[in-house]
């Protein structure tokens, strides 16, 4: 039996027309389902979604949603999201005003010295780090901009059997810029 082709599915890289919504929500059961359900039923596309407890207050969580502003006007997305009773505040970050970071982890099988050399090269070029090693594989980590992660992901595609995960981005306004509420 042949193993499934890695990355057989098309990788969708984030296009330029994305927006980052930083959404403060009540920390209640089902809130993520409400958000996901809203996006699904209104046909809004999500590129990534990251959730974490809000810094200041245990009652709230912060959800960072990267939305496709082609799939629907941003005004619609924000207006509908705002109607969810558990959504407390929404701020919209245009990519140029945002500091965005994402984490990528990849395990790469390394069976020969050629591959090892090529991988070390790739890691060095990307500014990534090695976080785990054993006799047959290396685990690589990159914390960086989404496009740096895109680049590394593309480079790693050429290594057979690679297993790769990304967290989706978190974002804050650049210092001196503000998000629009």
């Amino acid at each position, binding site marked *: 039996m042949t193993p499934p082709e890695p990355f057989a599915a098309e990788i969708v890289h984030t296009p330029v027309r994305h927006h980052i919504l930083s959404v403060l929500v009540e920390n209640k059961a089902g809130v993520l389902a409400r958000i996901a359900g809203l996006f699904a039923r209104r046909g809004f596309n999500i590129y990534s979604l990251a959730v974490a407890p809000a810094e200041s207050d245990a009652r709230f969580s912060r959800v960072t949603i990267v939305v496709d502003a082609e799939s629907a006007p941003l005004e619609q997305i924000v*207006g509908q999201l705002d109607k969810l009773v558990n959504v407390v505040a929404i701020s919209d970050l245009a990519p140029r005003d945002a500091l965005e970071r994402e984490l990528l982890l990849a395990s790469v099988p390394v069976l020969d010295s050629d591959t090892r050399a090529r991988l070390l090269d790739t890691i060095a070029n990307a500014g990534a780090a090695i976080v785990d090693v054993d006799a047959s594989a290396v685990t690589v980590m990159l914390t960086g901009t989404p496009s740096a992660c895109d680049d590394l992901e593309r480079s790693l595609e050429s290594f057979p059997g690679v297993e790769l995960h990304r967290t989706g981005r978190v974002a804050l306004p650049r210092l001196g810029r503000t998000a629009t509420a």
Partner: protein
Amino acid sequence: MQLTGAQALIKSLEQQGVETIFGLPGGAILPVYDPLLDSPIRHILARHEQGAGHMAEGYALATGRPGVAMVTSGPGSTNIVTPIGNAHMDSTPLVVITGQVATTSIGTDAFQECDITGITMGITKHNFLVQSAQELPRAVAAAFHLATTGRPGPVLIDVPKDVSQSMMEWWYPETLEELDLPGYHPTRDLDEEAVARAVQLISRAERPVLYVGGGTLKSGASAALLAFAEATRMPVVTTLMARGAFPDSHDQHLGMPGMHGTYAAVTALQRSDLLVALGARFDDRVTGRVSAFAPGASVIHVDIDRAEFNKIRHADVTLQTDVGTALAALGDAGATPAPLDAWWREIRAWRAQYPLTYDEPVVDGPLRPQHVIEAIAQRAEPGTIVASGVGQHQMWTSQFWRFDEPRTWVNSGGAGTMGFGVPAAIGAKVGRPDRAVWCIDGDGCFQMTAQELVTARAERIPIKVAILNNAYLGMVRQWQEMFYDERYSEVYLSADLPDYVKWAEAMGCVGLRATNVKEMADVIDEANAINDVPVVIDFRTDTSEKVFPMVAAGASNDDIMVHPSQRGGAR
């Protein structure tokens, strides 16, 4: 004071001023039905949970107060999904209480377990799964607050059986803070700058139209609308959801716009240079093909829900507030258009050339459905409330009944739910026992929820039901006739099966039948003389009648088809 969760739930409903609950008990909600026996709240035992839900909607539409329904878990809860969805589409304030299996059983596929909060997530304004008895008062108070403020809508409270059975220390929220809704801010300060820009647009308009939607009724803004319309002399159209918001008898009223709207209303919107949309949402049944809708018009959009802005149609000015507040602000700011004489001359010509019409009644029957509606309306006491199902009979009722008062039209707009009419009429009559209530129903619709007439008889709710019996799923038949080469697929029902008179009698109602014009007048008088039990009249109507005017689905409103008798001349 220690109470059970069930007692606290009922007491919370009393605190909210609830007078009537429409419902049907079962295992998971059983604990709550016990303290109901000791409560002054009236419970109306529906024969199907869908009936209970539509009754609550009819109650809400006729009174402006939230309707309350209570059902059990599992199938009880799924049976009320249709009314919840209907209320969501029409922004009707509803509080629905469902029983749920015990918290300890949730997630185990227990008997009659069903994830009703998950199912209704997309068709409620909000829903709650209550986790403890102590939380019940807050959930009830929050549900009523959410259902009735901002853009109204249905709210569901799911109450696990162990929650209603456990003890709590009685309390009730006294402030909005205690409702713990940090993300809910339904009202905004009025944007004075937007008001100024709206005034400017109005002052420049030569062909303005007040496009009045259901939000005007929700806002209780009929009087404000009348004052504003008369001050500005602007023509008014009222959507299906807004019938009654402005008197049909008023000279400035052009009637209903949209797919089956009047020629004058549809065409005035098309030719207008300024639409003032008041709690209206540019529904596809109003706009026809959106790209061809009112191509020369600027838009002032007033809505309490900002998500309606620029959703379908770009707005030049948006005012996020309720219609009454907006009209008061525009009035105070002295919004007046240019003299509208030329515009009115055009409109009057359309109105004169293409009034609503139908073929001459035939003396020996079959009856013209429009004639039946006019005959009932003529003989109805002032202030009569009329409900309907969904189909041709609904459109004819909207066209030919004369609405002169808000909250006298009870119908299913956004969802178009067949079977809405009978239970909604019952709910309306419960809410307004002082008013006569007619349901103009279709034969198809009647068969979906007729069993609620048993409820009406048992509870002494004397509504009157007129079945416009055309032996068909008439609206579908009309589309098959016009757009599918008269290939009739699964639309025939039969005029005689069931026998509606016998069925009515079996349900404890008076059953009457009219097959010609003479009988028609007699049975209406007979029905009007009966005030203690429900009456059902089987009106045998002409199968081939179609609803006109009509704009075909997806067509431009410019391509409106008028009644055949009005065709031929220049349009």
